[in-house]
């Protein structure tokens, strides 16, 4: 295999070997700490525009299982220490190298991923390039920006997913780059889910009289999506709303809150989140670089905080019959400990008083 380089915006260069697609990859370099779940990570549209690095050194052990895809693969590059040429799992279809080639994603392996993680942890998230040669100038790397992320990661057309079992609710899911897991969780709870593109207006959504609106996860800086935020503002209070990740951030922005960019984000399956109402702490799956500023919440009540760094993890909006969380109760990859939040949403749609939750 050919030598390949990972070049960071600050000029650090790591030499490794190439796999996956034979091309350059430019993006924002982030790390994910999950031990399992690389398939879900690679197919999570929230990683749009990013080069993903796995801190766990052995990636690809169980191969690629298409049933486990969460969406389209939108990562710009993939960094691992070692990838497995001989995967072993009864569901495995092909290896990760083949997957990256099919998706046109360049990969680099054989680098000291721990050292790079420490570098990002200390210096903050930065852009990087995966290339066969070290470029003479860093300008292109430094000037890279994730743009139009939501548009690129989301659906262009409306699609409908039937409820599993008896149909109880009709949910409109606004797709900013949704993971399939959200749709799955809703369908399992008797929801018929209509996935609509991000540009869909509040009027259009409400005209279909849904029992509830779900705002999905998605990539990029939440504040860029001014049009979406304006529509969310119109939705809130008129229908039960549940926002996840990007959806959660935009709900905060829609109600006058602020978001901030974290130094290196939360990406992995072991983030502790405390429910301030019950004192209970849950282990959650997360993938986000931005967060709602705890000090800048203008409406609603702070309900969940990260037990490690006290950042905002969820807000209740009793006045709007809405709530939102930063983490991923749909898991995939990651723990399923908070999936009960979808039940809460269902109960809200069923007309149960918000205050009781």
């Amino acid at each position, binding site marked *: 295999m050919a030598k390949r380089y990972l070049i960071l915006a600050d000029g650090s260069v790591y030499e490794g070997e190439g796999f996956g697609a034979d091309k350059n990859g430019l993006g924002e370099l982030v790390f994910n700490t999950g*031990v399992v779940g690389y*398939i879900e990570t690679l197919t999570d549209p929230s990683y749009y525009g990013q080069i993903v690095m796995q*801190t766990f050194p052995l990636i690809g052990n169980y191969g690629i299982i298409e049933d486990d895809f969460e969406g389209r693969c939108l990562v710009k590059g993939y960094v691992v220490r070692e990838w497995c040429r001989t995967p*072993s799992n009864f569901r495995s279809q092909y290896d990760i190298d083949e997957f990256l080639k099919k998706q046109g994603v360049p990969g680099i392996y054989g680098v000291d991923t721990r050292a790079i993680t*420490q570098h990002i942890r200390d210096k903050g998230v930065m852009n990087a390039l995966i290339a066969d040669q070290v470029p003479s100038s860093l300008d292109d790397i430094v000037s890279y920006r994730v743009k139009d992320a939501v548009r690129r990661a989301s659906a262009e057309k409306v699609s409908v997913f039937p409820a599993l079992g008896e149909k109880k609710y009709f949910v409109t899911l606004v797709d900013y780059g949704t993971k399939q897991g959200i749709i799955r969780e809703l369908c399992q709870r008797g929801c018929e889910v209509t996935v609509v593109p991000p540009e869909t207006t509040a009027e259009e959504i409400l005209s279909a009289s849904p029992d509830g609106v779900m705002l999905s996860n998605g990539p990029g800086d939440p504040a860029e999506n001014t049009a979406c935020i304006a529509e969310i503002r119109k939705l809130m209070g008129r229908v039960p709303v549940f926002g996840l990740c990007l959806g959660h951030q935009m709900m905060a922005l829609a109600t006058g809150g602020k978001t901030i960019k974290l130094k290196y984000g939360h990406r992995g399956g*072991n983030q502790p989140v405390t429910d301030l109402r019950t004192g209970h*702490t849950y282990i959650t799956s997360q993938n986000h670089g931005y967060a709602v500023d705890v000090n800048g919440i203008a409406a609603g009540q702070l309900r969940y905080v990260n*037990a490690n760094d006290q950042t905002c993890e969820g807000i209740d909006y009793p006045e709007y019959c809405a709530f939102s969380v930063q983490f991923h109760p749909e898991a995939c990859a990651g*723990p399923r400990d908070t999936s009960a939040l979808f039940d809460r949403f269902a109960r809200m749609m069923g007309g149960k008083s918000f205050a009781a939750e």
Partner: protein
Amino acid sequence: MPLNKDIKKVLMIGSGPIVIGQAAEFDYAGAQACRVLKKAGVNVVLVNSNPATIMTDKALADEIYLEPLTAETVKRIIIKEKPDSMLAGLGGQTGLTLAMQLSREGFLEAHGVKLIGTNAEAIDKAEDRQMFKDTMLSIGEPVIPSDIAEDVDTALRIASEIGYPVIIRPAFTLGGTGGGVAYTPEEMRQAAQSGLDASPINQILVEKYIAGWKEIEFEVMRDGIGNVIAVCSMENVDPVGVHTGDSIVVAPALTLSNKEYQMLRSAALNIINALGIMGGCNCQFALDPYSMKYAVIEVNPRVSRSSALASKATGYPIAKVTTQIALGYTLDEIKNEITGKTCACFEPTVDYVVVKFPKWPFDKFNTARRRLGTQMKATGEVMAIAPNFEMGLLKAVRGAEIGADTLNKVPVDDRPVRERLADMDDVRIFTCFEALKSGMSVEEVTSVTRIDPWFLFRLKNLADFEKKIENSLSDEDYFRGKRLGYTDKALSRLSGRKDLPYSEAVYKMVDTCAAEFAAETPYFYSTYDSVCDSRSFKRSSKPCIMVLGSGPIRIGQGIEFDYSSVHCVWTLRELGYDVVIVNNNPETVSTDYDTADRLYFEPLTPEDVMNIIRVEKPVGVVVAFGGQTAIKLTKFLDENNIPILGTSAEGIDIAEDRARFDALLENFGIRRPSGRGVNTLEEAVQAAQELGYPVLLRPSYVIGGQNMTISRSREHTEDYMRRILAGGIENPVLVDKYMPGVELEVDVISDGDDVLIPGIMEHIERAGVHSGDSIAVYPPYNLDDRYIEKICECSKKLALALGTKGLVNIQYLIYQEELYVIEVNPRASRTVPYISKVTRVPMVDIAAQVMLGAKLKDLGCGTGLYRTPPYYAVKVPVFSFEKLSDANSILGPEMKSTGEVLGIGKTMPEALFKGLTAAGFKVPSPRSHKKPGVLISVEESDYQEIISLAKRFYDLGIALYATTGTAQAISTLGIDVISVKNAGESDDIPHLMAEGDLSYIVYTGAV
């Protein structure tokens, strides 16, 4: 919930002696727990019969009872100490069973003692087979079809209902004692009976045997308000069927997809919520490799061997957090000490792979069945940390001290490899490697072994590499080899290339979070990479000393050496040094990340140790406390000009080298049993003949009397030599005259000018039984002052002559009124913790100070023989024979015990009684209805001696039985004796034993 203020005085129950299935991990857990309790201002009362533990140090508890772990003793302690609470989940199965017994009897309630941590109801739900099954069914967790039997007929009926093969699991036993697999009703009859016998409540579980499923474990925690976390997942390389203690285990699980992983993780959390666990808990699952089907195998509602492994594998201190939870804290209130920033209510994530490799005692028991199954046979284990499985495995293998630094191992017999692959034994991983290297495909090997192809492909990767470098090793190959985990020595040997390039090892930190947060804890492992976390680690300006640990727990080198290593570290830290410890045993206190200033979790081999020395640049290395594992490195370190603290390499060599040592003794006119070193079979036979049989045969430089034997004939000598020479010898075999006298043992501290002898021990067994297997009495119970003086004088001479600075252990023999030296060990010995505790002389602390130049006369314990206390302390060995079928249980010069207990009493009989009780002997009570009986069967040469013993038994009103010849000899005294036929001639003896007529057997002779 903050600290529960009602908890003021806690009774902690330890796990007692080290036996197979219950080793040093409970000292690690218990010591952590004691520290947490003390720190919380709680009064700690500790009971543990095992003196060789850190937890029984006076600094760790307010009141320590080195007493037998029986319900009777614990009750008395409760009455005397009046604790308000009891913590049982950290004392292994022993502690848990004891607590449950007291709880069930209502004793705890009657005396106002609350069981803190997981409560009795939850323990019952997890431990009682039926309740467990019912609970699992009620929460929808699948279990393997099974039923409970309390007699053999029921067991047979159940087995035919669920279909063979079935597995038998006795209730309430540790390490799966008495378990087994049955494929036919015939096998079932026997397996069921031994299972019923092993269970203290005569109950077994008969279960469908699901061979070939993956065995996955989760270490999980729950607090009082229901917060739950999964600390670590683990995967057994061997599929279900081999006890997890006997499996090669990796952490985290490596072959599970997210879906499978989350399914089992959720199940584990579901289970501990349903059971209401408070603290750490271990859940074992079987997972079908071809579907999403799984089943719960077992739940241990306590801290266990797996939790010690998980703690060391992730850095998450399970025992500590379990104790904090018992005190009332919730997980989110507890800080993660590794990062110092995050809270304990999170799940560790790792950026490396951990490989655990068991250490089996088969080298000690060459007749024992090496087949592995549901009954654990390993005495200890090593753990290795690496960025990939290959390096982890190679590190583990070379750290296990089994004479291997690669996976190439000489086969146990000459059957074709294909046939040997089917053996589920201790060398299976080597056999798999051999098969793959010889060209068998991964598919073929999987179909026989059912080991997941993922692991086999890793082995194949190593095999392919080795084949590639067979004839030439390029620089690139070399660097690849280093990243696969090979030592330079191995690469050189495999390729024939001598002038290797140099690749520098770097050290990465274990930080619970895969570098997401900056960690503060100095816990390192080696790898071949660009960036070194250790070199950039902030150090104090203090000089650094490196202490070498003792590796895996094995017969002959147990927890005693960890005790000494830890004390050495503590003393050196107090003296103002930055102390680095190197060890690879996950079960111990020494590998707790806060024992030393920096911990390197690495194999104790020359290359691995030297790489650490390059980073740490210590002013000296301590080899004296890590048993033979550390001592073995002396020569190498000395040759590389690394300063050795304490006794010099020269002094150590004199003690270990036969010829040099003999010359020294000659000089001082000290006698030793005559003997010589030999290199060939002929020399051995001749030497034995000249010395006169019986003779003692043993290799030099060994521990625990490994391969030591008493030979009574030329035939035996030849057999022995053939066996030893077949393995190849580096040092001569020693042939000594065997003298069956009284054996004595001393541990001496010397500063080069003076000596301090904390105490002299006298063995009850005559010389010839290994000192580790002997009952040792302190102070000597029938030794007159003349000998005591002589021993002191002789010990001083020897210690000074060897240039000892620190500890030296000397074994003596008195035979026909003459004193002989048998053996000198220039290091801390097995008896150091025992003597430290009973004399209250902090031996390791003093020895460590002396090593650094302090003088004994300034240290407050005086010189010469330390004062004798007004009580007796008896050390009684504990064996694990019930775990090792077909092992020869007759004692001899090769050590066989796995642990020891202490009995302390005002008189020798009282101390001995307590010691024997603690060791599990049921001394028949004079109040019992049945008249106790003794069977005597001795060799003709012993008739003379046995008659007076028989008379004393007779006078005590004990029924005497004897084999024909012995009976005749005894009856000459006019004593009533019942003559029975020899074991080989009739079933008399087994029959008497089955009837319970025999309480003791007195036996000498061949075995």
